[in-house]
């Protein structure tokens, strides 16, 4: 009897504590402050270094060959948390424990909009002027002339295919959107943002949909893209999120065609796998990553120093080589081309024509950003649709 009472009391009080804790103020302490553009004035110089730096980065962007010299030069000890997706990175930034992040376009706008990242005085970045003109003030990190970070690396989602199996050589995305070709041997990128690839194709294939921006879609445009992907699902072998896995699939012949990054293409070619890639006539989506500083960073000077360091040709070259990306600073080409013949030519680093054909990832917002006003489909619906596509 006594046991029963005491036990019950313990359990009840524990539950009450849990419930009580739960109903107090909400968790999370991300900064939802002012919208950034008219904030405090920008620092005019990099102040004394704090000795420590906490970063969120894509795996491969902060290898030892890049981080160790930085730590030696500046004394800023670097701690890196790898993010697996843009959304995870956004969430990590909200925690307030990090000084900076290597944000892709589908996270950077959100970060700016919620005031999580601060404007940067580009005068403090010594190699800023060397960055490719298209990447100095791109819409995913520069709003109304205010820079919220420095571009780091970029790449396009090109169409790769197995030369011995896929014939004739494709020049359009249509072959992986018809629902029947190479059934079970097609792959696609595993993220809701891939819906933009379908939209990009429809921009050319169904001009009466009047798609202008594959990330800003009205409901009918969005529905058309989703239906296209449901059709594609019938030919899909898998959705890839790890490029290592895609390389394996093409090597084994389990997959013969699908969107990819230059890294996979070059790795497969080097391994004598008979693949080829093309930037289809409809264009392609792509990703461009920016180093951004947390608005309430504990180590802002180390972060600025990192951004400065990251845009130097040597660091750009090292990262481009590891990651398989195109450096934002073309001066890295002198180094890269020595390591890998024609690296910069293969990756189209200095080709503005190629660059313009790429629709870089950005967060779909309900605000279309043009005369259509607030009628576009926001990202939350993109991922709901993504689940529907996968289970169609």
């Amino acid at each position: 009897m006594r046991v029963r009472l005491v036990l019950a009391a313990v359990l009840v009080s524990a539950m009450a504590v849990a419930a009580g804790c739960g109903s107090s103020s909400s968790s999370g302490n991300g900064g939802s402050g002012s919208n950034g553009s008219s904030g405090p004035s920008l620092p005019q110089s990099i102040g004394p270094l704090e000795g420590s730096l906490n970063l969120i980065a894509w795996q491969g962007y902060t290898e030892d060959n890049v981080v160790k010299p930085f730590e030696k030069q500046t004394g800023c000890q670097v701690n890196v948390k790898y993010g697996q997706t843009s959304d995870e990175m956004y969430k990590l930034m909200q925690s307030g424990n990090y000084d900076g992040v290597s944000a892709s376009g589908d996270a950077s706008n959100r970060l700016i909009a919620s005031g999580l990242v601060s404007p940067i005085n580009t005068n403090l970045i010594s190699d800023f002027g060397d960055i490719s003109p298209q990447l100095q003030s791109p819409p995913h990190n520069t709003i109304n002339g205010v820079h919220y970070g420095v571009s780091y690396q970029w790449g396009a989602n090109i169409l790769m295919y197995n030369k011995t199996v896929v014939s004739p050589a494709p020049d359009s995305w249509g072959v992986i959107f018809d629902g029947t070709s190479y059934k079970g041997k097609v792959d696609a990128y595993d993220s809701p943002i891939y819906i933009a690839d379908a939209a990009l194709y429809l921009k050319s294939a169904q001009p009466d949909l009047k798609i202008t921006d594959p990330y800003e879609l009205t409901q009918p445009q969005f529905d058309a893209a989703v239906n296209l992907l449901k059709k594609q699902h019938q030919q899909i072998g898998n959705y890839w999120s790890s490029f290592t896995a895609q390389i394996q699939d093409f090597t084994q012949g389990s997959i013969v065609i699908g969107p990819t990054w230059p890294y996979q293409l070059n790795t497969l070619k080097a391994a004598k796998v008979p693949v080829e890639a093309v930037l289809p006539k409809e264009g392609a989506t792509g990703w461009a990553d920016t180093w951004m500083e947390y608005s309430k960073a504990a180590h802002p000077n180390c972060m600025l120093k990192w951004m400065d360091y990251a845009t130097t040709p040597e660091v750009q070259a090292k990262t481009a080589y590891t990651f398989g990306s195109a450096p934002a600073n073309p001066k890295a080409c002198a180094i890269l081309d020595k390591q890998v013949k024609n690296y910069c030519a293969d990756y189209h680093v200095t080709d503005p024509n190629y660059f313009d054909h790429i629709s870089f990832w950005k967060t779909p917002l309900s605000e279309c950003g043009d005369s259509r006003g607030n009628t576009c489909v926001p990202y939350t619906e993109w991922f709901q649709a993504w689940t529907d596509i996968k289970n169609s």
Partner: protein
Amino acid sequence: MEPRPVRIGLRIFSFGVMAFLYIPLAVIVMASFNASRIPTWPIKNYTLHWWSLAMHDQHARTALENSFKVGLAATAVALLLGSAAAFALSRYRFFGKNSLSLLLVLPIALPGIVTGLSLLSAIEYLSLTPSLVTVAIGHSTFCIVVVFNNAVARLRRSSSSFEEASMDLGADGWQTFRFITLPNLATALVAGGLLAFALSFDEIVVTNFTAGAQQTLPLWIYNQFRLPNTAQEVNAVAVFVIALTAIPVYLAQRLMRESGGIGGRG
């Protein structure tokens, strides 16, 4: 006694199942020597490159150490709390015992993603910094269950009459525990502890949600796969771990065999 053809059939079937269990492991061992950076089959060229890489990889070594630390901590907590709970549930009768046994199964019965999400929300809510400590705390919850199951199974089989006899002969609670109860329980604790350690060592889902900047071995492997040039190194590390664990598992099973843990049909 089963008829002879049945016994032969069982033997063949059993070794067939064991072959099924070990063929993929054999593939892993062979893959660790595959010269190709990309996993392929069949293996055309062999190399020791991945092994040398693994031996010199500081990150891998740290991750391995971290996994040990977390595993030992979680197992220690589990041994204490699991056996305490086992005693309570097997030697006493009280109200709510059935619900309690249901509760004690939950950490292992509910999918890891649910557990991981809960712990992550709790960590965020309490503004804790995720670290090896949070990982260990997360692991200890299901480790407790594993030890509890093994201990309670043993305690149910042995009656409390030995303990009472010991007390009748003048031993106090502590002496009884040390000389009667504990030896009886020892092999169950070893089995439970080993299983708990194994679960913690290879755990990825809950760990993914509760870890901070420090990696355990599964986290290291998870990340390593995304590095195309050195991804294959993980096979060497995996084989190394399997080889390493053969020793304690073998010793434990000998220990159990000698004290009649897994022997005896009567």
